[in-house]
C-alpha cells in the first residue's frame, strides 16, 4: 500500500489517458485492422513481401 501511495501521479494519470485512448481506438474500429494484420502472415515483416 505504501508503494502505491508513493507512485507518481503522472504515471497513474498517463495510464488513465492510455486507457481512454484505447477505448477511443476500439470505438472507432481500429481493432479489426490490428486483428486482420495479425492473423495473416505478414509477408513484409518476414522479408518476402
Amino acid at each position: 500500500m505504501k508503494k502505491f501511495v508513493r507512485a507518481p501521479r503522472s504515471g497513474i494519470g498517463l495510464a488513465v489517458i492510455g486507457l481512454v485512448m484505447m477505448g477511443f481506438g476500439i470505438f472507432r474500429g481500429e481493432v479489426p485492422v490490428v486483428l486482420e494484420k495479425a492473423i495473416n502472415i505478414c509477408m513484409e515483416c518476414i522479408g518476402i513481401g
Partner: protein
Amino acid sequence: MGRRKSTNEWKRHGVQALWALLTNSYLIGFVQGRIYKGKLKNLCVPGLNCYSCPGALGACPIGAMQAVIGNWNFKFAFYVAGFLMFVGALMGRFVCGWLCPFGLIQDLLNKIPFPKKIDTFKGDKLLRKLKYVIFAVFVILLPLVLVDVLGQGAPYFCKLICPAGTLEGGIPLVLLNNSMRNALGVLYAWKNVLLLITVILSILIYRPFCKYICPLGAVYSVFNPLSVFRYRVDKEKCTNCGACAKACKMQVDPVENANHPECIRCGACKKACPVKAISN
C-alpha cells in the same frame, strides 16, 4: 571493460522465458508452418514479438501501430498508442528487461564468452538517440506518407529493419513452407544480414538492438521517469561506492538518475548495492 560485477540473472531469465513461452504457445504452428488466427490477436503483447511468429498468440504493438497508421481509414493508432501509454506509464522499460522475447535472446547471446566485450564506445550516447529517429521515421512517417494507390502504407520498420520478425517469423515459416522458399528474394537476404549483424553485435555488446534500434524501447523510455513502477535510491543509505553503476549493463548510474530512460529495470543495480539503498 570487464569491470562489471556479475549478478545472478537466471531468475529474470526464467521469467522472460516463461513469458515468451506463454505468449508464443501456439506450438502446433511451429510444426505445421502456420500462424495462430484466433481472437487473442485482437490484443497486443507488451514486448517486441512478431505476430507472424508461428507460436504468437498476440499482436506486436509496433507492427499493429504501423498497420493502423498505414490504413487509409485511420492514420492514427489510438488503440495501440493508448496501449503503449498504459503499459509504459505503469511499468516503463520493465517490459524490455522482463517481458520482451527479443530482449531475452540478446541477453542469452551476450552470455557467449568473447575475449573483448564492449561496454561503451565513442558515440555510444549519440547512437542511442537513433531509436527515436527510427520510431519517428519508420513506424510513424513512412507508413503515413509513403502509400500505394489505395492510400495504404506498408509496415516499413518490419519490412526493412526488424530482425525479430526475421528470427521469429521469417526463418521458421520459410523452413516449413515450400511456397515461401520459392518466393525468397533480396529483401529476405537483406533482413537475414541485419539479423546476423544483430546476433554478432549482441555477443560483443549488451543488447545493441534495445540500445540503438528498438522503437518500442524508445516509446517505453519516454515513460521511464514517470512510470508507477520505478526505482528509488535512499540517499542516506547510499555510500556512493559506484557498485550499482558498475553492475549496470545499460551504462546507467542509478545514483545520478534512478529512472533514466535507458534503464530496463533488470535489477542488477539493486543486487549489486552493498547497503541495499536501491528499492522499487
